[in-house]
């Protein structure tokens, strides 16, 4: 469905000046002295998968997510969406297949919930076209899926954190039901809302087959809903595969420098990570390990 093939990236300092009106971002000019934010990353996300991208701050999670979304162009390697190179696709075409949910959304003006959700339909409209009854129906379905139907006429900025995030997810769903990329979806939320969002994401994936990729620094969130995990450190994938194979005390120590206990929590029904203490500082770069070979992992196999 969505994959990164041997992708490397650095934030360029120059280039692109003459391409101001180009339809796509050109390949950035990279000064060899600029360190790579991502190096040799390969990741394959199967249709219907629920993948978590984990790593400490600065490991390149958000960059990887943005590359997958087609918002950045890799310095080398390529990103493919449904088999096509994302770099060759029009922005609107990408947007019709793949939607992004950012960590926080702060509109500069006051919109109603329905208006926010309907904005997800814009990639599907022709230049001077305005939403029609079909778009309204799709938007309402998306709101039903995220439990926000009752909020339709409320103003977005009057909602709670959890409600806001659900509305944004509804908007992303209205945009595309196929692939959802979420960047730190629960980081700024209270505990109750975290659970709420996690269950919405899970339900979307299980009941509606939405492919979900989320990046997070919350190991327990990833443990609770992701079936596969890619663990990043300093721009390289350290480990990827089924959750229980990746979330191990050794990997956690290698990436975070923390001694942690990873146990199966019977009542919760999934792995739980409990940090114990700092371990000795980790030195040197760990070699990238393995590709995530795509196979659909059933819920039963998750734990």
């Amino acid at each position, binding site marked *: 469905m969505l994959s990164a093939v041997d992708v490397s990236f650095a934030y360029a300092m120059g280039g*692109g000046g003459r391409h101001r009106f180009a339809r796509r971002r050109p390949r950035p000019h990279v000064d060899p002295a600029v360190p790579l934010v991502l190096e040799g990353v390969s990741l394959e996300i199967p249709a219907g998968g629920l993948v978590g991208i984990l790593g400490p701050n600065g490991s390149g999670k958000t960059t990887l997510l943005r590359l997958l979304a087609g918002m950045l162009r890799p310095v080398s390697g390529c990103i493919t969406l449904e088999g096509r190179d994302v770099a060759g696709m029009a922005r609107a075409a990408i947007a019709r297949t793949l939607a992004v949910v950012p960590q926080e959304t702060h509109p500069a*003006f006051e919109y109603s919930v329905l208006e926010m959700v309907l904005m997800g339909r814009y990639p599907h409209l022709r230049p001077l076209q305005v939403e029609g009854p079909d778009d309204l129906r799709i938007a309402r379905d998306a709101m039903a899926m995220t439990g926000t139907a009752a909020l339709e006429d409320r103003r977005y900025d009057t909602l709670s954190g959890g409600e806001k995030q659900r509305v944004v997810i509804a908007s992303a769903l209205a945009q595309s039901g196929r692939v959802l990329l979420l960047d730190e979806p629960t980081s700024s939320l209270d505990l109750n809302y975290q659970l709420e969002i996690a269950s919405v994401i899970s339900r979307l994936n299980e009941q509606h087959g939405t492919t979900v990729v989320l990046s997070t620094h919350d190991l327990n969130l990833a443990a609770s809903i992701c079936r596969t995990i890619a663990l990043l450190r300093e721009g390289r994938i350290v480990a990827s595969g089924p959750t229980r194979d990746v979330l191990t005390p050794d990997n956690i120590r290698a990436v975070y420098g923390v001694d942690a206990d990873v146990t199966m929590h019977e009542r919760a029904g999934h792995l739980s990570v409990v940090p114990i203490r700092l371990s000795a500082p980790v030195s040197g770069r760990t070699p990238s390990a393995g590709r995530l070979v795509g196979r659909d992992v059933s819920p039963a196999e998750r734990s």
Partner: protein
Amino acid sequence: MTSSATALAATPPVRRALLRSVSACALLFLATLALAPLAGSTQISLSRALDPTVPFAANTDAQIFFIARLPRVLAAALVGGALAAAGVVFQALLRNPLATPFTLGVSAGASLGAMLAITFGPAISLIGLTTVPLASFIGSIAAVAIVYALATARHRGFSTNVMLLAGVTMNAFFSALILFVQYFADMSQTMRTVRWLMGNVDVAGYGSIAAALPLFAVALAGAATLPRALNLLSLGRDQAEARGVNVLRAQQIAFISASLATGAAVSLAGPIGFVGIIVPHLLRLLVGSDHRVVLPCSLLFGGAFLVGCDLVARTILAPIELPVGIITAVIGGPFFLWLLIRRSEGRE
């Protein structure tokens, strides 16, 4: 549920709003345009003005109507609409409801150009424009070009933060230059500049309107492609990009069209304040924040608003004529204060 209620619920809000609000604003605009030339400091007879049997050169009523009043009503409609629309676009571009068309230095550049023309300028007439409008337009373009260059340097696309800083700096810098030029100006030149700064739509003829019209048309053509992108941009740059907006191009078109409209408006009538901020805010209160509705409504309402203000300016103390900028300030100042109070209360 009655059938009409179901039918309403099945129509997306934007369609309802477009129908209702835009047509209401269009009606207001046309009505104002039709009625304003009929009123003024002098009593005229419309039938005599339109009487074809009286030769135009001798028909005072006709000349008042067609040469004195109609051009200034048209100019006010164009300038008011341009400033209001530019205000909407700048507010969306800078993601700040307090932005005005003058935030980015356009008007400061225009004012410097005008002052230089008044103090040192030769008397020239080119394509229907005299020295002051020409110089102020050049000044506004210069300011815009500097801000644009600064905001797009380092090939990082468009930095709205840099743009805002550059604009504020331009305002301060050009204001300082204006004070400097003032030392070379004599009394009458200073008075002329001060008067120009208060705004004046009395264009006395169609020449300057005709010259400015292509600029307004180009700006309008650019802005017409923007409303959807502006909605998405107001959510954030990444969000807009993720929904298929070519963010760089949208920002460029927004900046250039809004600056062009503002530059042309200020060159024609001087820097008339408050229109660019009252009208967008008022309309957002009335019709919501969807730019597909707010932009056309602001354009129409802004034109009607300035025509109305000019009518008040030229009749309230007849035969004395007040500068129209004073009327917009008298209305706009308190409105703006009320708006700020309302916003801060809302925050609490």
